[in-house]
């Protein structure tokens, strides 16, 4: 194998014009991923971006790697076939909230169940952008959209809960307004062996502007979000004095320094607990009742589907020798006519 070249962001920028609306959150996600690529230790030709359909799914056109813009919802399945065929590839799935959790829900949960070694980035703008603004499975109840003039009545998925319920080995959340945090999270996703799901809270300036405003505006964000750091207590707030305690099975927001509570009482974040119950609990933290966790919720090891398939192929080949069609044809009963 030839040596690993040193890349810069530029190596991943193709000559294609980027066609999102000015101000769309997708731009900064693109920038973050282009910046992360040189750091993941993969050759450019071994990286593939696979997407479905949606504004977000235009993404592969904007990466100077191999890429597939596919059909609506099917990217995880297509990526599974690709990765299983060539386990050496680094396969990224780019998808929207509708693409991944509406039409593509089944493929998403099955890719996760199999733990195919894919990095799945969900651009969650809580709306269908490309089709001009219908509500999505992550839109809040009551949202007035083109298809819900009297307000939507479907309850929203919590993406973190859905994927944890589907046996996720890695889940993280980040936000389009924080390019540095995005890079950290993408880098960790890239390092994970198995399906790494990253939810990016993304702003659609045209059809659902401000959906994540309370989590990104400077005034509030320290209080409305919770930065997860492995081995560190769940502390948040402008004054770094709020924390999460777990009583029985119930998480509670407490103030450090009040009622005798000290930092030691605060629950310590651990990405690596095998039991996903803790991940699940974190996935239920929603604004405004709880601070919204950002960072890596969960990163545990489990065998990857694609690698296991390859292992079986290797093991059987080792045992039986490389397949020989002539021998196969002659196996069992044959007879000769003269």
């Amino acid at each position, binding site marked *: 194998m030839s040596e690993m070249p040193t890349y810069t962001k530029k190596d991943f920028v193709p000559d294609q014009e980027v066609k999102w609306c000015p101000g769309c959150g997708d731009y900064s996600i693109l920038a973050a991923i282009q910046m992360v690529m040189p750091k993941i230790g993969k050759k450019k*030709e071994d*990286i593939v971006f696979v997407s479905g359909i949606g504004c977000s799914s235009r993404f*592969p*056109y904007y990466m100077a790697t191999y890429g597939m813009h*596919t059909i609506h919802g099917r990217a995880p399945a297509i*990526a599974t*076939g690709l990765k299983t065929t060539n386990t050496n590839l680094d396969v990224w799935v780019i998808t929207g909230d509708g693409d991944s959790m509406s039409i593509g829900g089944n493929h998403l949960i099955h890719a996760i169940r199999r733990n195919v070694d894919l990095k799945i980035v969900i651009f969650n703008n809580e709306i269908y952008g490309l089709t001009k603004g219908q509500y999505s499975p992550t839109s809040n109840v009551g949202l007035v959209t083109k298809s819900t003039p009297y307000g939507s009545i479907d309850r929203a998925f919590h993406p973190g809960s859905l994927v944890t319920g589907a046996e996720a080995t890695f889940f993280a959340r980040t936000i389009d307004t924080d390019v540095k945090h995005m890079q950290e999270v993408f880098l960790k996703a890239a390092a994970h062996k198995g399906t790494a799901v990253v939810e990016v809270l993304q702003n659609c300036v045209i059809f659902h502007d401000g959906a994540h405003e309370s989590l990104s505006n400077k005034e509030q964000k320290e209080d409305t979000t919770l930065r997860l750091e492995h081995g560190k207590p769940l502390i948040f707030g402008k004054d770094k004095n709020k924390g999460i305690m777990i009583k029985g099975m119930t998480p509670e927001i407490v103030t450090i320094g009040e009622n005798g509570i000290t930092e030691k009482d605060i629950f310590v974040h651990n990405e690596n607990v095998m039991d996903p119950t803790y991940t699940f609990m974190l996935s239920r933290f929603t604004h405004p009742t709880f601070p919204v966790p950002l960072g890596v919720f969960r990163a545990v090891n489990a065998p990857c589907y694609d690698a296991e398939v390859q292992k079986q192929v290797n093991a059987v080949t080792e045992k039986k020798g490389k*397949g020989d069609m002539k021998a196969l044809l002659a196996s069992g009963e044959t*007879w000769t006519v003269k």
Partner: protein
Amino acid sequence: MKEVESVVIRFSGDSGDGMQLTGTQFSNTSALMGNDISTFPDFPAEIRAPQGTIAGVSGFQVNIGATHINTPGDEPDVLVAMNPAALKANVHALKKGGTIICNMDAFDDRNFEKAGYKGNPLDTHELDAYQIIKAQITTQTMEALKDMTELDSKSKGRCKNFYALGITYFIFHRDLAPTEKFIAQQFAKKPMLIEANVKALRAGYNYAETIEAQVSTYKIPPAKIEPGTYRQINGNTGTAWGLIQASMASGRPLFQGTYPITPASDILHELSKYKHFGVKTFQAEDEIAACASAIGAAYGGALALTTSSGPGIALKGEAIGLAMMYELPLVVVNVQRGGPSTGLPTKTEQSDLNMTLYGRNGECPVIVVAASRPNDCFHMAYEAGRLALEHMTPVVLLTDGYIANGTEPWKLPDLAQYSKIKTKLIEGAKTGEDKYLPYKRDDKLVRTWAIPGTPGYEHRIGGLEKAEDSGNVSYDPGNHEKMVHIRQEKIARVASDIPDQEVVGDKTGDLLVISWGGTFGATYSAVNEVRKAGKKVSLAHIRYINPMPTNLAEIIKGFKKVLVCELNLGQMRDVINSRYHCNAVGYNKVQGLPFKISELVTVINKELENTKLQ
């Protein structure tokens, strides 16, 4: 001809197993249903031979058919073996490719020994040439009767012959009523036994229905046998092996993305055994994912395969359209079954031709080929793989339940004839500064195939309309029209890469019979039979459906009339008429059953009469 129109079944078991009665019931029911029959009961020589031994085997053979049956048949098509001894005693008489229904409950070490088997014959290769239906006839019978607490278990056990009979009744759609009536009379004084035996009969029938039991009684069209080494093969196995061979010949690993469905699942079962051939099988969450995964594999450089039957293929339309738009190689196998909707999963039909040709949005041409018989599946599957890889396009291979499960002798092919598929793969890193143009074409309009891992060829593909050569998204009206024509013409040019249409009989005449797919055995035999009577009829059995061989137009012109025989309401007839404007008529049957030669002979003669009268 009589063999071809008939089926021979042999019921065989211990002398205490009631095989004579079972066989008689099957015969009587068949006679009542209008079949001609011939039977051959064959008792053990000794009055009380030891149970479980060969000497104790009692058999009853019946030959049923639509027309004159003169003998009980030479080789049984189906053997019911109630124990290992029955198997051992009869398996050599069984026709190659026949079906064995085994009572697994009696397949234990004690009985193997009694029958003179070293171990379980089902675990060895000695039965490879047969289809096996494993049924737990004894325990299932007991279980079916478990609520009848007043009946002792010995009496219950005695009902198992009716369970076995029930299985055969489902498979050959026999009417249950006559046997139920017989049971009622026979046990008039013991109502409990009436109930028990009827329950057992139905349990067996339902079991066969539940597990979608299928028996193909594929008949071999007469032909002179060429010298060579032969083996038995069924269609699904042939399909699997043909694709493995295409993988070997192209150097591209075989990837199958599929989802189980009758009668296509066996291709998955077969391919999953061949990991040492580099085959990767992926049982997906559904048919869409199955097809999608294959498309991903194709982009990754595999010989990509997805297999299913009608309802599953209906789900793949959008994804096949994407593969067509990508211009990636993809083999789609449709093992057709009775439709519409869930239809008749275990029965055969040819009613998916229209869906195959037209079941996608937009102008979306794909190559379509069809296998003509079980031993043609290897070849046509290889062809599907070859055409997909050499022409960078989806190819649909049509087979059907009849030939997929049907078995016949197959002359082992000379693998040298199946060894050179020249893919469009780009190998090695890119040199030179020019941009890679993934949709630049050769004179067959085929593009190149650069796969991830190849340095310098990084490119993106998508389902939106593409600019010529570069493949970039293009909304330009003129470009769109051009691309639609290019994709159409690309498939049309495949015609130069397939063999000429063969004609059975003379190149001109009064009547041209056209058939396609799994009906070859019947149409071939029927046409030959009518020709023997000196009539001017020929057969064009089409294996390359889209595009069709270029000489077909000329062939059609050589005949006064065209008759298209197919197991649907006239789908190929319509295609022929719209392409060749030849006023073809159809002979159609939609019963979930294959053609009988006799019916075809009748219709061919009738059409010949009509032609004369005109």
